[in-house]
C-alpha cells in the first residue's frame, strides 16, 4: 500500500491560505484528547486538526488531501467507543464541532436541517421546545449528530421508533476528491436508484464526509410514563420481554438493568435510585397524548409482568419521578468506567428472544475466566452492552483474559445469529470480529464500495472493513 504523505509546515501554510490559521492546530498545538476517543485503548495523534466552519472548507481540505495522498479522519465530540475517530495514519483530522448550527426547521415538511457538529442534546432541546420530536435516543447525549449518523446510532427508543437511519431524509456530503453532493431530499418516499444516503449512514466516515443533514421529525408525544419493574432474577426480567412485545403494546423503550450496575451509578451520581428491593429490573417507557391513553397501554403490560413473577410495577408518571430513573440509566457507561481502571466493551445485537441466552452465557463466562464483567442494555431490541473490567490486573494478564472474553462473546453472538455491533460501530477495534462474523462475499462487496467512493483510500483508513 502506498505510504501516506505526512503534513509539513509547507502543507500547513497552503491550508492556512483557505482557512483561518487559528482554527488549525498543528504539532504541539494539538491537545491530547484528539489522539483517542472515549473508550478505545488505541491512541494516535493527527498531524493537523482542522476545526472547520463550512462545507467549502471541508471540500478544499479533501481535495488537497486527495491530491497529496494525506489521510483524513473525521471527528465530532470524540464520544465514540470503537476507535473510529483515531487518526491511525496521522494526517488531517477534521473536527466538526464548530459546524454546530441548526439551519432550518421546516414545519410543513416536518424536517430539521442541521450541521454535523450539533450535539444530540442541543438538537433534542431545540425541537422539543417547539413541539417536535427526534426519536433516536442513544445514551450519550453529548455526541454530535454527525457522529450519530456515522455510526447509525440507535439508543433506547429503537424498539418503537427505529434508529438514526430511519430519521435521515437527506445528507450533504463531501466526497474524497472534494466534490460536494446532495444525497436524498425532503421527500418521504424515494425509489430513485441505489440509496447512497443510506450507504453513507453508518459508514463511520470511510465513504464520504457528512457536512449537513436533513432529519425527519415527528410531533412530540404530549405525555410519557415510565414503569420500573423489579424482578427476583434477571432471567425472569428478560424472559418477560418477548411476551411484552407479543402483546403489541409497543413501549418506546425496554431496558434491563442489574442491581450491581445501579449501585455503581448511585456512587457515580451521588444520588440514590428510587428503589432497592430487587436484583434485576426492567425499565419500560410508554408515550401518548393523554395519561388515560398511556394507562390503557401499560395496564396489560403490568399484568404480564406480574404473571411472570415481577415483585411490583413502579410508576414514574411525572418529570420529577422519571428523571432520577432515567438519569441513573443514562449514567451506566460512565459509572462502570469510574468503577475500574480500564475497560473494553461488546455491543452485540442478538434476536430479541435470544437475549436471555446471551446474558446467561456472560454470567457463566465471568465465573469461568475470573474477570469482572458488567452488562446492561436494550432488552427490547436485543442490543446488549457488556463491559469487561481490568481492575488491578497486570497488562499481560488483562490482554490475555480480555482476548478470551471477547472471542468467546462474539462467537456466542454469532451462534445466536446476532451481529457484532448494534449501535457503536466497528471502527478500528471491532474489525477482527466483523471479519470473522460476516461471509467473505459481504466483505468483498464492502471493500468494493469503499474503493468506488474513495479510490485513493484517504478517508478514515484502516476502519470498518479495510485491511
Amino acid at each position: 500500500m502506498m505510504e501516506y504523505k505526512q503534513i509539513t509546515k509547507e502543507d500547513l501554510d497552503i491550508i492556512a491560505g483557505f482557512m483561518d490559521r487559528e482554527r488549525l492546530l498543528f504539532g504541539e498545538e494539538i491537545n491530547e484528547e484528539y489522539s483517542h476517543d472515549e473508550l478505545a485503548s488505541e491512541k494516535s495523534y493527527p498531524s493537523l486538526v482542522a476545526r472547520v466552519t463550512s462545507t467549502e472548507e471541508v471540500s478544499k481540505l479533501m481535495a488537497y488531501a486527495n491530491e497529496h495522498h494525506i489521510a483524513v479522519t473525521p471527528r465530532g465530540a470524540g464520544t465514540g467507543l470503537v476507535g473510529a475517530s483515531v487518526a491511525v495514519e496521522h494526517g488531517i483530522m477534521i473536527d466538526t464541532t464548530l459546524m454546530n448550527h441548526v439551519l432550518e426547521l421546516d414545519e410543513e415538511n416536518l424536517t430539521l436541517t442541521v450541521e454535523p457538529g450539533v450535539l444530540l442534546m442541543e438538537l433534542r432541546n431545540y425541537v422539543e421546545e417547539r413541539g417536535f420530536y427526534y426519536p433516536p435516543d442513544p445514551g450519550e447525549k453529548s455526541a454530535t449528530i454527525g457522529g450519530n449518523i456515522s455510526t447509525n446510532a440507535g439508543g433506547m427508543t429503537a424498539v418503537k421508533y427505529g434508529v438514526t437511519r430511519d430519521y435521515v431524509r437527506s445528507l450533504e456530503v463531501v466526497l474524497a476528491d472534494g466534490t460536494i453532493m446532495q444525497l436524498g431530499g425532503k421527500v418521504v418516499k424515494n425509489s430513485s436508484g441505489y440509496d447512497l444516503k443510506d450507504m453513507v449512514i453508518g459508514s463511520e466516515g470511510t465513504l464520504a464526509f457528512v457536512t449537513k443533514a436533513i432529519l425527519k421529525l415527528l410531533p412530540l408525544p404530549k405525555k410519557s410514563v415510565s414503569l420500573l419493574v423489579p424482578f427476583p432474577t434477571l432471567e425472569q426480567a428478560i424472559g418477560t420481554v418477548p411476551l411484552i412485545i407479543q402483546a403489541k403494546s409497543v413501549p418506546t423503550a425496554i431496558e434491563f438493568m442489574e442491581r450491581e450496575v445501579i449501585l455503581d451509578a448511585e456512587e457515580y451520581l451521588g444520588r440514590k435510585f428510587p428503589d432497592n428491593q430487587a436484583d434485576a429490573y426492567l425499565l419500560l417507557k410508554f408515550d401518548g397524548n393523554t395519561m388515560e391513553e398511556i394507562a390503557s397501554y401499560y395496564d396489560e403490560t403490568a399484568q404480564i409482568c406480574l404473571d411472570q413473577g415481577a415483585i411490583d410495577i413502579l410508576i414514574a408518571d411525572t418529570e420529577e419521578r422519571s428523571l432520577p430513573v432515567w438519569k441513573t440509566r443514562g449514567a451506566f457507561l460512565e459509572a462502570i468506567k469510574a468503577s475500574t481502571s480500564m475497560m473494553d466493551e461488546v455491543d452485540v445485537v442478538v434476536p430479541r428472544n435470544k437475549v436471555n441466552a446471551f446474558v446467561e452465557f456472560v454470567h457463566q463466562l465471568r465465573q469461568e475466566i475470573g474477570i469482572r464483567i458488567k452488562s446492561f442494555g436494550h432488552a427490547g431490541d436485543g442490543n446488549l452492552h457488556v463491559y469487561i473490567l481490568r481492575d488491578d490486573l497486570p497488562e499481560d494478564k488483562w490482554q490475555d483474559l480480555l482476548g478470551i472474553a471477547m472471542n468467546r462473546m462474539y462467537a456466542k453472538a454469532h451462534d445466536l445469529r446476532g451481529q457484532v455491533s448494534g449501535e457503536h460501530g466497528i471502527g478500528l477495534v471491532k474489525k477482527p470480529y466483523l471479519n470473522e462474523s460476516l461471509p467473505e462475499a459481504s466483505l468483498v462487496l464492502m471493500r468494493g464500495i469503499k474503493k468506488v467512493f474513495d479510490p485513493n483510500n484517504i478517508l478514515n483508513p484502516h476502519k470498518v472493513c479495510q485491511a
Partner: protein
Amino acid sequence: MNILVCIKQVPGSNKVEVDPVTGVLKRNGADAKMNPYDLFALETGLRLKEQYGGTVNVLTMGPPPAKKILYEAFAMGADKGALITDRKFGGADVLATSYTLSQGIKRFGNFDLILCGLQTTDGDTAQVGPEVSEQLGIPCVCNVKQVEGVEDDSILVDMEMSEDVERLKVSFPCLLTVQKDIYEPRLPSYKKSKETASRDIETYTLSDMSDTDEHHYGLNGSPTQVQRIFPPESHKARETWQGSGEELADRMYSLLKSQKFIA
C-alpha cells in the same frame, strides 16, 4: 408514631403559566400532580413508619379532584387520607389556608408528627407549614435536611441554615418542613394502587370544623390582596470567553466566587 403528611395538588407542568390578561395562574385540572416537594415529606413519613412503626396519614385541601393525590399517596404506602373541600375555602391566602388546615387536622386526629414539604411549586411561599404549627400551638422546625433519631417523646433533626446546620431535639407533637432530597422518594406501586383503589377518604367541609365562622376561611379570612401575578423574567445571557486554559480557569474561578457559588 402517628404521622400526618400535608400534601397539595399543583399544576402538572413545572413551568407555571400565567394568563397574560387576567394575571391568574392557569390551572388545568386534568394536568395536575402532587407538589414535588411533598414527595420528600411523604417519603420521610414512610421511612419513619418503617423504622419506628405507626401510621402515615395524608391530608390535602382543594377541589374534589384533589383526591387523586391522596390515592397516589396510598400507592406509595400511606394508610389513611382526608380531603378538606368546600367552595367557602376558595381564594384562601396562606393565613386562611393554614387556619383551615389546622381545623382539618384537629378533625382528622391526634398526630405526634406533622410533615410538610418545604414549599409548593405554584405558591412558592414556604409559609403554610410554619403557620399551621402556629395555629396548632406546636413547635416547628423548617428546612430539615436529616432525621437523626426518634425517641418516645421527641425527634432529633438537623435544620439547614444558610451557613450552618443546627441540630434540634423537638418534643412531640411537632411540625417539620423537610428539604428537597432528604430521601429519594419512592415511586407509586401499581400493586398498591390496585389494592387501595376503593379505600374510603374522609371529606371535611365547613360544617365539620369546630370553628364554623365563614369569616375565618377562604377569601373572607384572607388579609392578603393579590394585585398582580406575573412570570419572573428569565435571563439566558451567554458570553463566550477566549484565552488559554489557565486564563480561562482563573476567570471562571473569579466569576464563581463573585457570584458566591464557591466560598
